[in-house]
């Protein structure tokens, strides 16, 4: 059974300038213990999807339409706020891009780590503190007793991200949402954090929703990938297959625009043009204006996400044409 299922999720925000369709008909699923990478540039709806999953979208500003998010068979969108709160931090946990700002400056590391343990595990403060120290050690920080008494401003970004991870895994969640977990960190620290995530996932059989714009991170950690563009999933498939055989022109563009060490190019390949204005998305394929393989009807008709083979789906007429 799938642990997490997004079924035709659509989220729209009503703003003064008009309706922003942040996420449209997004469907994907994550099996228990699996890592799904969600890639796309900023504003493509990655983070909105994650917030919808946590039930943290501001309502009524955000409209969630005709869709379902199921976690362990339960529909999260119908869940009462109280039950959803018990799920958050307990079965679904999340880590953020900026560990510096995601920790409270006036509370010590230990105090903050105790919070979910007290809230969900009903531990006494003393037991929670011991557990907090164990968690700090668990994420590979030396001198846990001292770190527990330290305050966020005394630690480095990498350490803080480890603390955030410790906090997220404190109640042994079944799903971890990692929203750009390494973006704000130094490259050397990035590798360490990815290694830690990989290790935790293996040991705790924890599924992950890995949201990033960095294909390198996806290659390191993910089992499957969903590529998002302008609020829609344009391609989805196993990571190896998708990297080796990208079918959507946008995915190809993304892969081509990564710098590859050792290969010297006069210019780094870039995808020309810009992401369409979310206030006025075109009726057809949102990528059509930038697409090198555009066909005549691409701007009028929108390609549906179709299955190519076993688990590889793509929403592109050109790709369909090739496979057909």
């Amino acid at each position, binding site marked *: 059974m799938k642990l997490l299922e997004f079924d035709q999720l659509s989220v729209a925000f009503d703003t003064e300038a008009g309706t922003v369709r942040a996420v449209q008909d997004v469907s994907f699923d994550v099996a228990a213990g699996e890592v799904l990478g969600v890639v796309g540039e900023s504003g493509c709806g990655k983070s909105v999807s994650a917030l919808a999953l946590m039930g*943290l979208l501001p309502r009524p500003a955000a409209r969630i339409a005709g869709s379902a998010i199921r976690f362990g068979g339960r529909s999260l969108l119908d869940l009462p706020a109280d039950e959803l709160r018990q799920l958050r*931090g307990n079965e679904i946990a999340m880590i953020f891009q900026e560990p510096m700002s995601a920790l409270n*400056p006036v509370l010590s590391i230990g105090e903050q780590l105790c919070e979910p343990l007290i*809230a969900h595990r009903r531990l006494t403060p003393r037991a929670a503190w011991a557990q907090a120290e164990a968690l700090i050690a668990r994420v590979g920080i030396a001198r846990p007793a001292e770190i527990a008494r*330290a305050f966020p401003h*005394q630690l480095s970004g990498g350490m803080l991200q480890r603390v*955030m991870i410790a*906090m997220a895994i404190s109640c042994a969640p079944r799903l971890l949402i990692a929203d750009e977990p390494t973006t704000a960190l130094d490259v050397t620290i990035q590798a360490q954090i990815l290694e830690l995530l990989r290790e935790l996932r293996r040991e705790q059989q924890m599924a992950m929703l890995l949201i990033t714009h960095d294909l390198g991170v996806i290659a390191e950690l993910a089992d499957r990938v969903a590529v998002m563009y302008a609020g829609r999933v344009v391609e989805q498939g196993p990571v190896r297959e998708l990297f080796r055989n990208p079918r959507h022109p946008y995915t190809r563009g993304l892969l081509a625009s990564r710098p590859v060490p050792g290969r010297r190019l006069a210019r780094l390949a870039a995808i020309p043009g810009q992401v369409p204005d979310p206030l006025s998305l075109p009726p057809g394929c949102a990528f059509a204006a930038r697409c090198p393989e555009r066909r005549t009807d691409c701007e009028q008709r929108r390609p549906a996400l179709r299955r190519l083979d076993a688990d590889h789906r793509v929403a592109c007429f050109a790709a369909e044409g090739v496979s057909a």
Partner: protein
Amino acid sequence: MTTLILRLFGQRRRAEQLAGRLAHAHSPLAEALRRLARNRLAMAAALFLALLVLLCLIGPYFSPWRNDATDALMINRPPSASHWLGTDFLGRDVLTRLLMAGRISLTVGFASVVLSVAVGYTLGALAGYLGGVVDLAVMLLADLLMTLPSLPLLIIMGAVLSELKVPPDYRIYLVMVILSLIGWPTLARLIRGQVLSLRERDFMLATEVLGLSTRRRLFRHLLPNTVPLLIVVATMGVANAILNEAYLSYLGLGVVPPTPSWGNMMDTANSLIDFQRRPWLWMPPGLAIFATVIAINLLGDGLRDALDPKMKP
């Protein structure tokens, strides 16, 4: 002496640096207090205030004169060995009355700030955190109170209190309530603003993601972040309240004789003869108000710098 203390400080700091920063993990508040301890001006102000409070508290017990003891043979005497600050028109010892007045003025200042902080902080935090109707109602009330010109309001209230023949001892409490009523909207606005901005910070989103209860998020995570602002505003508020009490009492609307206060002691300056010939009657309370307010403001400035360097206007 000072250099010795400073040297001790310096050495301890160096020792801490050697032991590694983490060996002494200090909360931001504790670190701010250490920064404050290095601000000489603020520390001098704090020392002055501590001495003042001590003097007002225990001074009268050592005085040979009773606060309200009149002496028909010793009226309006200039300072002398027996009456250090002279006597007033009833032959009362000015120094003793000054210290007693200090008790009253400082108490009124403190108590009205405590009261206005209790009201303003609660309402401001609620308005900022809950938003919606609560926010609207609180801010409407605050705006309403801020649009009322305070001096005419105070004069009317003072007149009403006199008309109702409220006994002088009891009137002090009413003065505190009136002062705090005037003081809370400013604080409520500041706290509301800060709560509004803190509410949107990532760490508050993080507490929501962790599934913490609303009460815990508010009291354990959000409100502790407002404490620095609260400390600074409350400190400055005391100076303001002391000044306001002085206005009121000077105009005969606040603390009324025979209860002494710095404000009503300065009332003697209204008489031309007292003003020209008997400066010992009105200079000491005036200087006391001046020095106290300056000291509180210096301490407040120091606290602000220590708690949040970015808060500097």
